[in-house]
Structure formats: C-alpha cells, structure tokens
C-alpha cells in the first residue's frame, strides 16, 4: 500500500482508490439531481409562455425584455445593489467583531449570557420584527423617539423617511443576524491552537495585538468563504424584510428586485417571468462568486476551494 502511493498510477488504479471518494459523494449527487438538476431543466420555462393545457410556446427573450422594461427597473436595480452592499459589505465585519469580543470575555457567566441571548432574534419572522421595529420607531409612542425627546431632540418618523429607511433596514437586519452569524466565527475560533496565543503573550502581545496578528489571520479563510458565498446572493436583498417594512412613502428608496418580481410575477401569475428573473439573478450571482473566488485565489492563494 505505501509503495503504491509512490508509483505513478494507472487510471484504473486511481479509480479503485479514489472510487471510494466518489461513493461518498453519491448520496449528495442523488439529492442534487432530483431536487435541483431535474427542476433546473424546467428553467427553460423562462424562454416559453407557460400553458397548462397543451405545449408551451417558445418566445425567446420576451420575458427577459419584460424584466428590464419597467421604467422603474434601474431604480429597482439600484436599490438592490445599495441595500445588498450595505448588508453584505458593511455588515460583514460586525459578526466577526462580535465573536472576537465575546471571545475576550473572562467571565464565563457573562459570556454564556451574551451567547445565549444574542442569537434569539434570528428566530423571529420578519412579520414580527417589522411590527416590533415599526412600534419602536413610532414618532408618538416609540422608544427611539422618546429617547430623542429626553435629550431635547424633535421626533423623527424613520419608517417613512426616504433617507433613513435604508438604515432602518440595515439596523434591523443587524439586530436580527448579528448573534446568529457570529456562530460560525465562534466555531472557527475554537479551532485556533492555544499555543499560538501563549507564545504571543510571552513575547508581550496585548489583547489587540493578539487579535490582529493571530486571530484574524487564522479566521481569514472562514471570513473569505463567508464573504464570497454571500456575494452569490447579492441580487436577493432580502424580500421578507423589505416586503414587511415597506410603506408608500419609501417605495422609490427600497423597492428591490425581489419585491418587483413578486408583484409582477406572482400577482399577475406570470410564472415564466419569475423563472426568467431567477435565471437573471442566478447568472449575476454566479459571475460574482467566480469572480471574487479567482481574485481571492490570486491574492491570498485560497478562494472557495
């Protein structure tokens, strides 16, 4: 066996040895074929007019043209890009920071308390969270404006303010996901060899330096992975959240691709249209992932794989 690894191997030998790996992969492949690949063949619906009775007609790029044809399309796209960027890029360091901070806590009690509470909001649906935040931001009875009143500031209606609403989306998303998203980093932190820290301390490193020179580089692969994966979903800026928090005054500021697709596609029963839209979103996501992956690989030697 040990000699076999040193000789160049024939294809057959390779298959025998690595065949086992393929076997391990089979269940996942079966799942993918059934739940994803076969339905994906149905994405040809994007190029057809769906008919229940009788064959669907081929219509080429008609639905894509429809997607781009709305006079509001560029605003919608712009909102999607801005909100997504805020959520993916601006938000990105926060769970990491949170994990680092929790990691620094000496008091086990406090640490357990913080860890146990931080992830709770993740379980609330946006229907509920929207209600909570709308209430909280109410100009008349909400906590936020009451706080402003305490320091002598006049109340502001954040929910209907075109300039503030995206920040409301950002803040509520942070509130919801900060704790939960930090779990991955906490798990990764567990893997770091404590000896590294010990040697650093003996060299006189303080907390900040340990974080900067050890923790972050060790976490870098996880961070990059998370970032690249999230970019794959760049075109989905968060339907549930926007849908529940949108009101008439802020349409032009927060109408995103998904809410637009929802209105046209579902309410008008245009299934081909939604399929075309999903194809579009997926294509952009793919390009983004592969692009950042190659870039990361060139810069750090490691991308997604």
């Amino acid at each position, binding site marked *: 066996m040990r000699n076999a690894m040193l000789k160049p191997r024939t294809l057959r030998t390779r298959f025998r040895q690595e065949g086992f790996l393929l076997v391990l992969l089979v269940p996942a492949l079966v799942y993918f074929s059934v739940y994803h690949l076969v339905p994906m063949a149905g994405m040809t619906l994007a190029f057809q007019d769906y008919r229940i009775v009788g064959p669907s007609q081929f219509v080429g790029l008609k639905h894509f043209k429809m997607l781009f044809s709305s006079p509001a399309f560029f605003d919608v796209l712009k909102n999607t890009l801005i909100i997504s960027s805020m959520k993916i890029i601006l938000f990105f360091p926060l769970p990491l920071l949170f994990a680092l901070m929790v990691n620094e*806590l000496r008091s086990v009690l406090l640490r357990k308390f913080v860890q146990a509470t931080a992830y709770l909001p993740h379980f609330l649906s946006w229907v509920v969270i929207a209600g909570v935040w709308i209430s909280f931001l109410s100009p008349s009875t909400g906590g936020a404006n009451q706080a402003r009143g305490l320091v002598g500031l006049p109340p502001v209606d954040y929910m209907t303010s075109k300039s503030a609403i995206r920040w409301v989306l950002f803040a509520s998303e942070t509130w919801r996901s900060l704790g939960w998203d930090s779990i991955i980093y906490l798990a990764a932190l567990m893997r770091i060899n404590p000896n590294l820290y010990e040697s650093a301390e003996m060299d006189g490193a303080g907390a900040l330096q340990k974080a900067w020179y050890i923790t972050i580089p060790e976490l870098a692969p996880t961070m990059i992975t998370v970032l690249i994966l999230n970019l794959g979903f760049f075109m989905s800026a968060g339907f549930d959240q926007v849908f529940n928090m949108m009101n008439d005054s802020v349409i032009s500021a927060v109408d995103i691709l998904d809410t637009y697709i929802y209105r046209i596609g579902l309410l008008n029963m245009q299934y081909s249209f939604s399929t075309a839209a999903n194809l579009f979103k997926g294509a952009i996501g793919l390009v983004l992932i592969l692009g950042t992956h190659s870039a990361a690989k060139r810069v750090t030697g490691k991308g997604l794989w």
Partner: protein
Amino acid sequence: MKHKGKPSSLADTLFRAAIGLALLAVSLVVLVPMLNLLALSLSDPGRVGEVTGLTILPKGFSTVNYRVLAANPLFVRSIINAIIITVVGTAINLLVTSMAAFALTRERLPGRRFFMLLVIVIMVFEPGLIPEYLVIKKLGLMNSLWSVILYKTVNVYYLIILMRFFEEVPASLIEAARIDGAGYGTIFMKIMLPLAKPAIATLGLFYGVFHWNEYFRASIYLSDPDKYPLQLILRQFVVLDDTASLIGSGALFSYDEAARLDYGALKASTIIVAMLPVLIIYPLILKYYTKGVMEGGVKE
C-alpha cells in the same frame, strides 16, 4: 477558550471591561423585545392594553394563551411531526453533507473541479416552485413527511463551510494515517469527524433550526392536517389571522371568554412556543464548543 500566562495590564483590563459593557448592551437590546413578547403572552387578557413596548414583566398573569394553543387538537401532533422532521432530517443532512464535504476536499477526487462548479451553480440558481413541485409529485412524495425531510438535504452554503473546516485539519495528520495504512474511510471516521466536532455541531444546529422553522414546503406538499409541523399551525395564527381555527378549542371557553382574548398576545405566545426547543437545545450545543478544542489536540 482561556488564555493562560502573565496577568494582564491595566490597559487590557479596561479594554476587557469596555467590551463587556458593550456586549451587555447588545444583549439587552436583543433581550428586551423578546421579554416583552413573553410578558405580553403571559399577561391577563383584560390588562393587555397596559403593555407597552418596554414592558418586561407581565401585567397580571394568565396562561390562557398557551392553553388555547395546547387545546388545538392538532397542536401536540404538530410538535411530534416537527420533532420527527427535525431529528431525521438533521441526521440525514449531517451524514450526506459531511461525506460530500470530505470527498470534495480530497485533492485526488476525480472531477473535483467539475463537482465544485456544479455545486456553486446549484447554489445560485433557484429553479422555482413549479418544477420542484412536479418532481415531488412524480416521485409520489406528495403528502408524505419525506418530501419535507428531504428538502435541502445538502445546503451548499453549509457544505462549503464544512469543507473549509475539513481543510484546516493538518495534512500531516492525514499523511501519518495513510502511512499507517489507513484508507479514506478510516481517515474520515477516525480523524476528520472527531476533529471537526465544533463544525459538525454547528452545522447540526443550523440544519436543525432550518428544519424546525421550515413551514413553506410543508404548506405546499402536505394536505393532511395531522401531518402538519408546528410552524405551519402557528403560522395560521400569525399570518393568516385565522381566528376560526383557534376557536376550534371551543371546549375551553364560552363565547365571551374567547372574544376577550387579545389577538396580539396570542400571536406572542405562538412565537414563544415556536422558539422554545431551540432555547433549550442551544446551550447543550454550546458545550461542544468548549469540548472540541480539548480533544484531538495537535502539537505542532
């Protein structure tokens, strides 16, 4: 994770104190609205009007909302369904995902690049509801719990995260094992899995929560009410505002009492009930995080 070594300097202590305060603030910001919901759900229905956004303790005390939920004939059944779906689903998830992640991280996997690309494509392209529905139908899985259990058997996002964790197992360990004559199977079972315990635990948490909260697929594929998982029943209260189904617990109340129930408080209690199992299980998972680093230590 404890740092041993020299006692910290003043700067360090202040720094830690500042962090502690900041985190405490974050926890409170998160905790208060949740306690508020809890208080609302436990308040006496007549006094619900007194509950503001900042109330933490219930006004009066009444378990009527929870009794209403429990009295729903489908309630207990739906919890059992949810548990079945979650436990079976998560077990399958972890098995299939870890096997696939292991295979994909072995450089020698034939067609590795191809599979990686395939997996990414699958992640970003959402085929849409109707094709998936048709496939489930063709497979004869309609109205079967399996249609829900098998949904997202492999979540590509989680798969790739797990791959990342697998890659961090030092190559030297693996080499050592191969020299000792271990095949891929042994490496997988005796080295990878034990070392990646925190990752597996994390994925177990993610998949578990995912199954527990999933209602949409259940709503499409299940037509027998006694197959409905918990979230689906709860949703009918919150989203569809289906008072009729809750008054199916009519045996408990007279018409007047039922009409006096505060709807908002009832919704709050459904939310609390939905979250309860996760609240209980999460601390158990946290234990894994501290254990994992002790076992399988690597001396470099």
